[in-house]
């Protein structure tokens, strides 16, 4: 409220009718709205005409491009002029005339290009272009019809060259104009590949060295392999396979080249007494050699180490086998002694006792000596034996308490009880066999 009052006061001062101003504003707003609503309609109307309209639009837009082209073309024509001169300068150029013609044609074409604005480069033409060259030449290019095939190709190459810049322009602008429905239909326009076969071949023919069966091999020394090397390579990441394929290709070429050169009488093999500077100097070769030697020594050392390791493993086995053998030998000798003893004792019973006793003593001594020897050998682990004794005496490991007290099993065990003895009375033994004589006892012991 306060604001309106202020406004009216201001208006009164300035002498302007506030209401009128407000009305004007409203009118403007409504008109704007109408315009907004109306616009899509008009656009829809335009759509069918769009393709026709595209041309003038392109013309408008392409003004800048035209300037660029002119610059390019200028430089191109300069190049061609220089090319003309150079071509003439080249000695014995077989395609001199050709290049001359080309230069003229190009010049003519450039003139034509400059005179008529190149705005005719249309979307349709460009989309069709990737399919390939010849079709594109059919498209309406007023003067292209008259001109020869080559000129057309050249023109085409030119139009293709200007592709990248143009594409971006037209694409963007078209996208803005299109409605949503049409945008959906639109395939995203990608940059066309440039691969102008005619121009490439023309360039090739311009520079190509003479080749063929009539040309001596020694002039160019180039060999093309009989089949593509890529076929032999299954996986390009596989180094060995790849290098092998390259090697095979080079070897084929070398063999073929050698045969041809020798046929032509060109010296091929370097004689042994021909010394000259090499690509790799002696220092470098020395390094290579040193590296090779180092590699070899490393390999040798590794082999040696492996051998040692294997030997060590094998050595252990040998040791075990030896120990077993020793034990076996010992057992055998003991057995032998025992049998000897038995025989001796049997025969000794028949012969004099004394001898037998002597012999026995000798044998016993022998055995004892062996035992002593063993003990001597055992002395090495003397402390361990002592320890063992001590452990058994004072205890080591496990519980020592209640070891001798009865438990359920031992209490129920009647192993040591005999009813006979109990009935016979305390300590009284039944009839016992009288003790045999000493000799007999000994004999019995020997038999056992």
């Amino acid at each position, binding site marked *: 409220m306060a604001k309106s009052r202020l406004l009216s006061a201001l208006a009164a001062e300035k002498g302007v009718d506030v209401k009128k101003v407000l009305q004007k504003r409203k009118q403007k707003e409504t008109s704007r709205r109408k315009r907004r609503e109306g616009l899509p309609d008009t656009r829809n109307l335009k759509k069918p005409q769009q393709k026709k309209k595209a041309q003038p639009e392109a013309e408008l837009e392409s003004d800048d491009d035209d300037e660029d082209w002119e610059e390019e073309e200028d430089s*191109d024509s300069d*190049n*061609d002029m*220089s*090319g003309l001169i*150079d*071509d003439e300068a080249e*000695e*014995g150029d077989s395609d001199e005339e050709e290049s001359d013609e080309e230069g003229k044609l190009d010049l003519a074409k450039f003139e034509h290009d400059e005179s008529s604005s190149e705005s005719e480069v249309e979307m349709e033409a460009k989309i069709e272009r990737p399919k390939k060259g010849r079709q594109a030449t059919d498209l309406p290019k007023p003067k292209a019809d008259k001109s020869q095939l080559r000129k057309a190709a050249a023109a085409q*190459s030119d139009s293709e*060259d200007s592709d990248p810049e143009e594409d971006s322009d037209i694409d963007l602008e078209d996208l803005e104009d299109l409605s949503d429905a049409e945008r959906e239909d639109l395939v995203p326009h990608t940059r066309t*590949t*440039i*691969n*102008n076969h005619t*121009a*490439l071949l023309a*360039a*090739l023919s*311009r*520079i190509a*060295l003479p080749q063929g069966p009539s*040309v001596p091999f020694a002039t*160019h*020394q*180039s*060999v*093309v*392999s*009989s*089949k*593509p*090397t*890529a076929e032999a*390579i299954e996986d*390009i990441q596989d180094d060995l396979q*790849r290098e092998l*394929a*390259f*090697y095979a*290709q*080079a*070897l084929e*070429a*070398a*063999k073929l*080249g*050698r*045969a041809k050169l*020798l046929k032509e009488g060109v010296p*091929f093999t*370097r004689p042994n007494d*021909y010394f000259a*500077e090499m*690509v*790799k100097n002696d220092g*470098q070769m020395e*390094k*290579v050699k040193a590296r*090779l030697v180092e590699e070899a020594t490393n390999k040798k050392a590794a082999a040696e180490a492996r051998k040692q390791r294997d030997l060590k493993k094998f050595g252990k086995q040998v040791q075990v086998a030896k120990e077993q053998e020793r034990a076996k030998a010992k057992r055998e000798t003991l057995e032998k002694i025992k049998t000897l003893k038995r025989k001796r004792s049997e025969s000794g019973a028949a012969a004099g006792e004394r001898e037998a006793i002597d012999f026995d003593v000798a044998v016993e001594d022998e055995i004892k000596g062996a035992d002593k020897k063993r003990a001597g050998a055992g002395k090495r682990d003397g402390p361990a034996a002592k320890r063992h004794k001590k452990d058994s005496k004072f205890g080591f490991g496990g519980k020592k308490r209640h070891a001798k007290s009865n438990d359920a099993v031992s209490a129920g065990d009647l192993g040591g009880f005999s009813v006979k003895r109990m009935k016979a009375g305390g300590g009284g033994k039944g009839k016992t066999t009288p003790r045999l004589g000493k000799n007999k006892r000994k004999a019995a012991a020997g038999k056992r």
Partner: protein
Amino acid sequence: MAAVYKSLSKATGQKGDAPAEGIKRNKQRVLILSSRGVTFRHRHLLNDLASMMPHSKKDAKFDSKSKLYQLCELADLYNCNNVFFFEARKGKDLYVWLSKVPNGPTVKMHLQNLHTTEELHFTGNCLKGSRPILSFDATFETQPHLKVIKELFLHTFGVPQGARKSKPFIDHVMAFTVADGKIWVRNYQISEVEKTEKAGEEEEKSSKAKSKLGLKDTDINLVEIGPRFVLTPIIIQEGSFGGPIIYENRQFVSPNQVRSELRKSKAGRHNARAEKQLERVVKKGDLGLRSSGPRKAPDALDTKQVFA
């Protein structure tokens, strides 16, 4: 006497020239140079290649990367009709330009997997300036752009007959192979070894035939010399360092793009993480678990409310 000698020598000279007269003489000179900003490996590769090309002229680094057409004038000054130009970008990417000077064509290629001769430690070696046998893959004959590239290789790497510093014997092969859309270049020494005897009679027959031809009883082995590299063709221009583009390789992805993709993927990971973190904070706030976030509306059935 002198006149007689002159006339005689003229006659013999004509005889000697006669076979070469019908055909164009292969006369090539190559200007080898690099742009500024090449790394040492690029430089070494350039030296390796230059040492194998006696028909080349090595020049100082070229200053500009945008005004390459100046190279034409430079080549003209040195009387060269080929230019072999290393363009280094960002101190890591190497582009190779091969051009016929006065009026094209020009090929631009991306050089990858570069190993110089010194790095490779191969045992092969060859005479400096001996003429190589150029071995091309059969694929080179299939497409026009490959044909053009082959021709350019032939002019640049092939040492013309009778080049000034060339040696009279042939002892190495240069192999160009198209595989995986790229051109792989290898360099081998030809070493001749005694032929290993296999089956008697056939060998004898063939050896007799060969001895008639003047071949010795030797077999050929190849030993690699180096360098190794891989070229990806990018464009072919009609002119020399200029003119319309007549071929463009769509399969080629620029190393810059590769790097940027890598960077983006890395950045993408971080962004995803950051977003998730933010989401969690918001979610916690919504649940009223954060002191600073909006308080959860008091629930009527909350224990605090019920037993208030």
